[in-house]
């Protein structure tokens, strides 16, 4: 066996094996932290802005309708 092969062998043998319960240990740690917001998700405040905009639009429509009705009633 040449030197390089022996060195490779040593380096490969240097790797550790994770403990059998490693995934469970990590997931126990992960459980302590809230679910991160993912990139694809819109920020939480955006839904509030959308809701307020929808309500404002609805009120605007209603006011316009009532104003139009009032004008129309006046003309008649």
């Amino acid at each position: 066996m040449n030197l390089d092969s022996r060195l490779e062998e040593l380096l490969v043998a240097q790797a550790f094996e994770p403990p059998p319960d490693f995934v469970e240990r990590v997931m126990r740690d992960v459980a302590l932290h809230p679910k991160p917001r993912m990139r694809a998700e819109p920020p939480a405040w955006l839904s509030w802005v959308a809701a307020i905009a929808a309500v404002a639009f609805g009120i605007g429509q209603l006011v316009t309708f009532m104003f139009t009705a009032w004008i129309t009633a006046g003309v008649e």
Partner: protein
Amino acid sequence: MDIDCILARIAGGDRNAFAEIVAVYQRPLYAFLGRLGLTRDAATDIAQETFVRAWRNLDQYIPERAAFSTWLFSIARNLALSELARSARARERSEGTLTGQTAFEHGPHDDLAADQSTRKLRAALERLELTERTALALFYVRDLSLAEIAGLEGATVGAVKVRLHRARSKLRELLEDELG
């Protein structure tokens, strides 16, 4: 493993999908940390912290910029470098004394019958430049290409090749008796 699918499941509220990521990457991550010359205990702490940080910062992962493995290993690399620097400082402080365990010394959970060659290799790895050591350790991670290693190391592919060559030459020199 379809990482996009797993990330979509996590976005949908399935926390357990992250366990699949841990299951896939735990071995290569441990192997990387072992080849850096860290002890099993230090490797365990860093591997665990790497996954927790990855979980907390999943929103910072940008698939268009790098593969998930590259992103994950960059977290591990940074943590490992901090640990190596910390243990180097501790070693300097405790020089001349018998106390002060460092990342290179055998922790209580290390195999008692640790192979002599492994110990010599660990001591030799310690004598490499940090950049040579990280390049060498990353080289054996199957998921990473030379270009990705270069990205992680903040160097060109050519520079990484030079570091690998230098690291191997130094190790051959340091372990002459062992390899011969």
